């Protein structure tokens, strides 16, 4: 990635991720084991009145992070802000495409350039499932977090 300033209207390169039940189950156990719940178990979902497990909002947040890490590098990871709302259910078998567009260029309180974006996840039917607003400094090529997290996995 080059240290190229973003401009208003710039669309970030979108990418698509399938929603896979096995990954939903594992997502509930990495870092913390949350046990069986409506995100990971069909019976638990039924007991909660759902017809099938529902992907967690955090799953979508993870995809939005990927978009922002790719675009901003350290500028997202050190100081990025996101406000996201989950507006439509996501189920296993769905396919989400992750989008972002630059909407503003300002300066923060310290006078440093700040980029504003709208981001969203969209399912295979064109329905938005999550929408959010993001701010970060202008992108940089550095990805220094990889050094402190044991390198890319």
């Amino acid at each position, binding site marked *: 990635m080059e240290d190229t300033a973003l401009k208003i209207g710039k669309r970030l390169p979108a990418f698509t991720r399938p929603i896979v039940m096995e*990954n939903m189950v594992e997502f509930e156990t990495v870092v913390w084991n949350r046990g069986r719940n*409506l995100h990971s178990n069909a019976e638990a979902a039924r007991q909660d009145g759902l017809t099938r497990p529902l992907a967690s909002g955090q799953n979508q947040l993870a995809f939005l992070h990927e978009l922002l890490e790719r675009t901003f590098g350290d500028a*997202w990871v050190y100081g990025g802000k996101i406000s996201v709302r989950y507006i439509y*259910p996501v189920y296993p078998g769905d396919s989400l495409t992750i989008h972002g567009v630059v909407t503003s260029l300002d300066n923060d309180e310290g006078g440093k350039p700040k980029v504003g974006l709208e981001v969203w996840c969209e399912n295979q039917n064109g329905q938005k499932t999550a929408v959010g607003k993001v701010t970060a400094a202008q992108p940089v090529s550095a990805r220094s977090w990889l050094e402190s997290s*044991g390198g890319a996995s």
Partner: protein
Amino acid sequence: MNQSVQTGAIWGSIEVGEDLGTFDYVMTVEMISDYRRVVDNPEAAYPTVAARHPANLFYRKYGGRMRVPNTGQDSEYFNPPVAGKRITVTGRIVDKYIRRDKPYIIVEAKAVDEDGRLIEVSRLIGLAREADEPAFAVVTRKWGA
């Protein structure tokens, strides 16, 4: 408040500013690796996304009595977790309100590692329901399904 809104006794008793306590854990190399594999992003910086700090804190106090399905999140990221470092999470209730006849609770969690590095501050926007109310009722009301 709209008197027709069913907020429940527990929601009514929760106070803005309420301390939710603290917990800690070590972010291991394995956790980071597992997270990256599950989200199909070999360079993911914040495995804490899956840790759900605000929800974890809330359920340590209210688990079994109340659920706060995640309808959104406001987060700020300061320093990604370092493998092998202990992370301490503290939290509180920062707001509660009725919107479109539905009760919400906002839970804020702050994560700091053992070296004093601020990791992230996250706010969960929880659509509150008592634990014995099926999720279906709340979810379908929200999404109009």
